[in-house]
Structures are given as C-alpha cells and as structure tokens.
C-alpha cells in the first residue's frame, strides 16, 4: 500500500450553475465556491476548521493573484497551517493534489490536509477573466489564425483520426454519453438531469465534425473539497475512510509521433498506479474517467488496459456502462453531464469515487464497491507533440489499508 498513514475522510461538492443574462441561476464568485466547498467538506468529516493543519489548492483558470493559496488560507480564516501546497495541472489536478496531500500526511509533515478546487468559467454576460495561459504563443501563432475553435476542434481531429483507424463512430461513442446522462439523472448534484437516447445524441447540433453538441463537456461553476488525514484521526471522526492504493502520473508523454492524435499518453500513469496498487484494472468496481469528450474516455479505456485499440469500437458498443454493468462508468454522470467546473473539473471524478466506496451513491450506487479508478487529464495536445499534457490515475480502496 502506497500511503499507509493517509486516508480520505471527507468530501464536499457544491451545486452547479451556468449563470447568464438569459437565466436567473446564482452567480457566486470563486472564493464563495471555495469557502462553501471547505464548509461542506469539514461538515462531512465532522471536523472543526481549527483542526485542519494543511491546505491544498487546485489553481483555477480564472485570473487570480500570485500567492493565491496563501491569500486563500487567510480568506478562509486559518491561523496555524503546517503546510500549504498547490497544483497547476489544468483540468486533471484533483488526483495530483490529493497525491501531494497524502504524501505530506503519510510523511508526518501534517496531520490533516483540506484540498480544495473550484472554478467559475461561466460569468453572467460572458467573457470570463480566463487567465492568459499562452506564454510561448502556441495558441496565438499556430492555432488562432487558422480558426481552430478551441478544444472542440482539437478533439474533433483526434476523434476523426481514431474513427478512421479503429471504427469508433458516433453511433458507438454515443453509448458513453447516453449511459452518463442516465447516471446524471440519478445524481441530485448533476447539472443535466434528464436522460436522452442515442438518437437525440446523434441529432444534437454539429459543432466541429465529427464532434456534436453532446460530445462537448458542459462548463459550470462549482467547488469541491476532499480531506486527507491519518487513519487514527479518521477513526476518531467516525467517517468511512477511503484509502489511496496507488497513484501514477505522467507529463508530455513521448508516445510515437504517429500516435499523438489517437492516444493521450495515459498508459505510463496507469502502469505506475496499478503497479503500486498491485491490482488489475479490468477488475475495478467502477471507473470515474476524466471525460471532456466520449472519444477521450474511449482512449482512456484503452490506455488503462480495458481493451486494445483495435477492439475499442466493439468494446464500447457492447459493454454495459451502467452501475450494475461490467464497467460502471462515471456513475454520477461525469463532467459531460454533471458539468465541468473549469480546471477543478476532475474533482467530480474523485468525489464520486469516494462517495461510491462509502456506499453513498444513492440511486447510482455500484453494489458492493470495494475499489475503483479515478483519472485526470490536464491540457490539450492534439497536434503539437504532447505539449502540456498531464495525466493522472488513482486507485481508491474502501476502508483503511490492511
């Protein structure tokens, strides 16, 4: 067991909103989401804020001052923290942030770390002060002038190439979306709460062929938290602990150049995580896979070891992704249907994984869930040699490790 002296003992997740001038959905600011997430997480763990001695902050995509984690600690009213840490790994940063917290607790540097992530990509009136993240001009010089319409267009390039090679057609990929919409319908915290069928998915508005509207993740404002502490402290608190059986990460994967469109390079992260956990990925009880697009989920299934690329189309076409199926997938609806809170989006997968292992999945509960997989992906690299990719795989296990 990788982290014998650290467990997850609390989670928090706010409601989602997409405020705009055309609706009356609430528009909270970033700090409000972070404060709410902190409050929900501490309440879930039944812990007083004064007993937290470590803070982990996932950096948001909206503009924040430098030293933001320090300012946030102040804002949240902490007076004596033994450790503050942060991640800046884009959308997939929940897993690396939890890994940092678990390392710090396992090493005895701190006892209890509150990890927070929130983002507010939806600003009423639009625009949003998105932090400029193009220091070398990749975007400005080699994408924007050609009308590359952001991630949708880049995912479309990947999906087209993947479909040509492996037959992953919209009819196949739509099964992922339909299953996740069903899961979202059972999740009171999901943004989209109505089921749709395959035909509705296929008929959704074309955005960037072959990407259609229901392939695209839905941006929402939200905040999340997770509390990491020692097994002893968790026992005192009385919440059901969840262990981290393994974690793996990799950046800028040096996959063969021919494959940079049809792989995301998660395989090394998966190998590390499952090696550490000593578990076979095909036997997990659930799969909370970072889902900005169904094609990305498909590539993850291949790269964590559920099927070979050549089998992927058949695998996705024939597998039951329901909570009682062979591959329970994104059991709370995933980011595609519950909503993507900007670069805090991956927290959705983490929090849902913990919920499942505590048996608190409600209508969406996987029966007898003992262990499961959470992944994260940060950054895009549809053409330019893996630039910015950050892949993470975490193996969660029910209870305190033996």
């Amino acid at each position: 067991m990788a982290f014998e002296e650290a467990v997850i003992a609390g989670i928090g997740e706010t409601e989602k909103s997409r405020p705009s001038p055309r609706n009356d959905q609430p528009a909270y600011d970033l700090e409000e989401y972070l404060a709410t997430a902190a409050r929900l997480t501490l309440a879930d763990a039944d812990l007083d804020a004064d007993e937290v001695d470590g803070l982990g902050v996932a950096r948001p995509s909206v503009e924040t001052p430098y030293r933001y984690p320090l300012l946030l600690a102040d804002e949240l009213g902490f007076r004596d923290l033994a450790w503050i840490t942060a991640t800046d790994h884009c959308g997939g940063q929940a897993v690396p942030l939890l890994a940092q917290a678990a390392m710090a607790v396992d090493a005895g540097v701190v006892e209890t770390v509150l990890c927070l992530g929130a983002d507010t990509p939806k600003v009423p009136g639009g625009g949003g002060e998105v932090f400029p993240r193009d220091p070398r001009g990749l975007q400005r010089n080699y994408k924007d002038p050609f009308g590359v319409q952001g991630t949708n267009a880049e995912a479309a390039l990947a999906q087209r190439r993947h479909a040509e090679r492996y037959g992953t057609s919209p009819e196949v990929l739509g099964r992922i979306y339909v299953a996740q919409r069903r899961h979202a319908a059972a999740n009171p915290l999901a943004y989209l709460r109505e089921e749709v069928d395959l035909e509705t998915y296929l008929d959704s508005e074309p955005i960037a062929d072959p990407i259609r509207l229901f392939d695209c993740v839905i941006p929402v404002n939200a905040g999340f938290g997770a509390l990491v502490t020692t097994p002893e402290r968790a026992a005192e608190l009385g919440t059901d602990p969840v262990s981290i059986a393994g974690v793996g990460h990799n950046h800028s994967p040096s996959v063969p150049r021919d494959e940079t469109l049809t792989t995301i390079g998660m395989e090394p992260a998966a190998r590390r995580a499952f090696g550490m956990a000593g578990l076979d990925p095909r036997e997990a009880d659930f799969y909370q896979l970072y889902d900005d697009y169904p094609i990305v989920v498909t590539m993850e299934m291949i790269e964590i070891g559920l099927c070979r690329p050549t089998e992927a189309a058949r695998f996705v076409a024939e597998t039951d992704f329901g909570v009682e199926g062979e591959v329970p997938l994104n059991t709370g609806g995933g980011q595609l249907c519950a909503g993507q809170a900007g670069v805090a989006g991956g927290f959705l997968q983490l929090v849902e994984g913990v919920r499942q292992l505590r048996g608190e999945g409600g209508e969406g509960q996987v029966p007898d869930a003992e262990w499961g997989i959470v992944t994260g992906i940060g950054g895009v690299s549809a053409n330019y040699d893996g630039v910015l990719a950050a892949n993470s795989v975490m193996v969660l296990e029910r209870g305190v490790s033996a």
Partner: protein
Amino acid sequence: MIDDRPLPDTKAEHDATFWEAAAEDRLLVQECGSCSHRQLYPGPVCRACHAEAPGWIEAEGTGEVHSYTVIRRATEHRAFEPVIPYVVASVELPEGPRMLTNVVGCDVEDVEVGMSVVVEFEPLGAGLAIPVFRPR
C-alpha cells in the same frame, strides 16, 4: 477575407522567422543541428534531443491530410462565423512535422484523411500571409 481575424505575433522571437518567410510564400520548419529532428511550433530547443537553437529549412510545400474537422459553429473565435463551414486540418509534411492549418479550394465534404495537398499563401494584408493547403 475575414474581418478581425486573430493574427499571429510576428515579433515573437522564434515565430518571427516563420511568419516572415510565410509573407514571402515560403513554408519553414525547424531542423535540429545535432539530431536532424524537424519540428513545427518552433522553439528555443530541439524537443527530441534538447539541443539549443535549432536552424530552419524550407519545406517542399506538399503534405497529406492526417486528420480534419469541419467547423460548424464558432465556439471560440466568432470572427470566423462568415466562413462557416470551413476545414481545420492537421497536415503532415513530408519533412516530418504536422501542422494545424486550413484546407481550402474544395467543398468541405470532399476533404478526406490521406488526401494529398499543397500549400498556398493567403495574404492577410500588412505584410502577412497564412499558409493554407488545397487539394493537389
């Protein structure tokens, strides 16, 4: 011509060479002096062997469509709305690198993966030209 089209930063250190050449109808890629690796999206080091200051070579100007998408909705850059539908493609150059570009000069429905294409330079005014591709 697209009004308010996003323009490259032609003053940027490594990119200036690329865009100055494009204005003269030449397509350049970087070539590493140490390991001969070619890269587009130029930079200060070779991404294969980490040697500094890669040089430049002129590409032949042909390529093959590695993948493509037909843009149906301007989700990020509204300036392109008047030219929808249009093709954004990843074109593989015989020199090695792939580049994001447009395929023009044919119906969007006629573009295919594997299609042979040849570069042309679309003038944008102000001494700028953008390398796009058309069917060969």
